Each structure stands twice: as structure tokens, then as C-alpha cells.
């Protein structure tokens, strides 16, 4: 396991002012934060957000960065989990002007510096770190190196679906048919190995982000598509079943 991207990580807590809140249906909330004393990030890194109750109790959770490093604000996309302590607060309570504690960027492993031909495979909210990568690729003209495949139950449950499609990402929906960018209709199904093979051609690295079940499923189909398991980097979040 080698490290090639020199990647900064922040070593202390700072504050983040919520500048924009966009609630996207029942499931997602997009937050745009102005982070004090900000350390620039590399696409794929995450922030830790800490909430503090009046009695001193704190809760902290990690959230991948969706924004380009050049963006003056840090963008997070949070999926609301039923009874989730931090995500429900961010989904239901947070307003523009609120101040949160934040720490980041964190993580030096699940990062893409724009130099390696790579395939990203996302399940649901696992797409967030890849949105930072695609925004970075678009700005720096490195799109030919970055391919993205995203899977979700429905289009509604895939954040950034429009942006992914505009980028030319492959999208697999498992519970509804989906009109592909080439005009053909894909029947609801999980990703097939045949769909991964062309995307995996010539890559040196694969990134997989999603729930535990999704990651192991994708691990299998990447293997079938001939991707060596030591080139695969994994980030897991979401339901652990």
C-alpha cells in the first residue's frame, strides 16, 4: 500500500459557518460551509463535523467533501438516516448562519490527485467523494483519467444525478428503469460485470464507496472484470447490513 499524493490533513478543530442549506426531498441535505483557517483538500478527503449540546455532550461524524478544492466553500451532502443523531440534526434543524465545529481535511488514502487513470464506483450517498473528483477533473482538464459508475435504488436516491450524467457517468438504478445518455433504456438491475469491463479498461486504480454490502458486491464484479484487488481502495459508510 503505497502513498503517492502528498496530502495535507488538518490537525486541529476549527469552526464552520453554514452559508447555504438545500434540503433535497426526504433524503438529503446539501450544506455549504465557510471553514475558518481552511487547509486545502485533495478530492476524496472528508471533514469531521462536531455538534455540541448545552451540557457539553458532543457528537461527531465524518462527511466526505463534494466540492472542488478551488471552491471558496466546503460542500457536504448528508443523507438523513432514520433516528440518526447527527444526520437528522443536519437535515431538520440546521440553518444558514449556524456555526458548527469542524475538522479537516482528513484522510490520505481515499484520494485522487488527478494523475492516475481511475474508476470510481459509488452506491447511493457514496458518490459524494467522487463529485469532488469530477469537479476537480473538469476544472483541470483531467476528465479522460476519471470514470465514474454510480448505483442507487432510484434516481431520487442518487445525489448529484444531473451532474453525474452531464459528466458521462454510468448510472445503474436497481428499482426503476433509467434512460441512458445515449437514449437507450436500462432495465432496473444491479451493475453487471459486462457494464464494468469497458470502464475498467486501462485503469491503474479503482475507488469504491458505499455501504458494506455494496462494497463487497462491487469487489466481486471488479474481480470478474479483471481488476486486481490490490489496486482497489475502499471507503464504507451507510447501512452496515
Amino acid at each position, binding site marked *: *500500500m503505497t*502513498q503517492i499524493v502528498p496530502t495535507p*490533513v488538518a*490537525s*486541529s*478543530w476549527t*469552526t464552520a459557518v453554514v452559508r447555504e442549506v438545500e434540503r433535497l426531498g426526504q433524503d438529503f441535505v446539501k450544506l455549504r460551509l465557510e471553514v475558518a483557517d481552511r487547509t486545502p483538500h485533495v478530492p476524496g478527503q472528508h471533514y469531521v463535523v*462536531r*455538534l*455540541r*449540546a*448545552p451540557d457539553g*455532550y*458532543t*457528537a*461527531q*461524524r*465524518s462527511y466526505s467533501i463534494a466540492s472542488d478544492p478551488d471552491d471558496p466553500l466546503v460542500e457536504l451532502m448528508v443523507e438523513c438516516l432514520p433516528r440518526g*443523531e447527527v444526520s437528522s*440534526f443536519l437535515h431538520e*434543524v*440546521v*440553518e444558514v448562519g*449556524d*456555526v*458548527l*465545529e469542524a*475538522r479537516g481535511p*482528513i*484522510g*490520505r*488514502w*481515499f484520494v485522487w490527485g488527478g494523475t492516475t487513470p481511475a474508476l470510481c464506483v459509488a452506491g447511493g450517498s457514496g458518490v459524494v467523494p467522487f463529485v469532488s473528483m469530477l469537479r476537480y477533473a473538469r476544472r483541470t482538464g483531467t476528465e479522460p483519467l476519471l470514470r465514474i459508475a454510480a448505483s442507487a435504488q432510484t434516481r431520487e436516491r442518487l445525489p448529484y444525478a444531473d451532474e453525474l450524467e452531464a459528466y458521462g457517468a454510468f448510472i445503474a438504478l436497481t428499482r426503476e428503469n433509467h434512460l441512458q445518455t445515449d437514449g437507450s433504456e436500462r432495465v432496473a438491475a444491479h451493475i453487471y460485470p459486462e457494464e464494468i469491463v469497458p470502464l475498467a479498461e486501462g485503469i491503474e486504480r479503482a475507488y*469504491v464507496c458505499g455501504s*458494506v454490502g455494496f*462494497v*463487497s458486491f462491487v*469487489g466481486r464484479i471488479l474481480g470478474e472484470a479483471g481488476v486486481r*484487488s*490490490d489496486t*482497489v*481502495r*475502499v*471507503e*464504507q459508510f451507510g447501512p*452496515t447490513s
Partner: protein
Amino acid sequence: MPVTRGFTGRPRGGGNDRLPPGQHDTGAGWPTLTAELTPQIDVDEWTLTLDGLVEQPTTWDWRGIHALPADSYFGDIHCVTTWSKFDTTFSGVSVDSLLEVTGVKPEATHVFATSTTGYTTNLPLADITDGKAWIVWDFDGKPLTPEHGGPVRLLVPHLYFWKSAKWITRLELRDHDEQGFWERNGYHDRGDPWLEQRYQGDA
């Protein structure tokens, strides 16, 4: 640091003194978090090597390690991603039993653990001796599943769980500290949950 407007947190009935700061009880769940794909390891091919600053470097195979005195851990585990799991039972052997076989050279101060996948983690020697660490293969009386590090993982329950390397194959005693995988990637060198040592730079 500021109080977060409108945040009260989950009800905390009387304060649970088993929960380190910033952790929550995951109940019956056992989340997994890995940086790599889960390897499938055949116990007939598995070995564990203990070497470096020991008198007698030793490699155990599956049968050999089972011949050591059985030992188990009953208690809580804590993951840096904020979940804790209470009353877990792991069975295997104590790291002390392995060190008894190999002996320890006086200059040894740290241990560097390596997995089949190339995953590594570093620990002070004092954190794996005197009944603080195990090599385990059973969880709740059943074989440890591959997602949780099966067939064999290191268990160091008093530290955050990334120190409990899954799919362990080698423990090397050294006279110096060197960061492992997550430590190089921004996580704390020691990782004591009670001191909330999550990331580099925490006290």
C-alpha cells in the same frame, strides 16, 4: 468551542460510564470499516510470525496456534468512527503466550503489526503485554467472519479498533516507533478512546 444551536443530542439516561467520550452504543450491530477489499483466507495456508527483537523468531500455523493455552476477552470495543460495542466475547490466545514462546529482547519497545493485505499498525509494546492483547479467531463462540478479520485478527480492546489489525500475519518487535497505515493517513499514533485520541494532533 460554541454550543450548537438547537442540538441537544440523544437522550443520555444518567451518563453511561462505559462509553468513552464521543462514542455511542451500536447495540447488536457490528459495523465494519476497511480500506481494502475483504480477503478470503484459507486457514490451511494461514500463518502468524512473531519476529524482530525476540530471542526466538517463531511462525505458527493454524494447528500450532491452537496448541497454545486458550484465552478469551469479554468486554467492550470502541471504534474511532464513534461506535462502541458492549459485552463482546472473543476467543483465541493471549499475545503474552506468544511472547513467552519467543522471548523479548530488552531493547524492544514497540510492535508493528502486518496483515495479508499489507495493512499495518503500530503499538507500544506495553499496549500488547500483561493481558491487554489477544490473537483471536472466535467471536461469540463462532468463527470470526472475513469482514471482521477472520480467520484471525489482533485484538487490543483498550485502544480504538483500527489497532486491532484484521487478517493478521506478522508481529514485529522493534526498538522504535513507526507509523502504520491509518497513522500515516492522519490517525493518532496511540488511539486511547478514553483520551479521545482520534487524529494526529489530539492530546
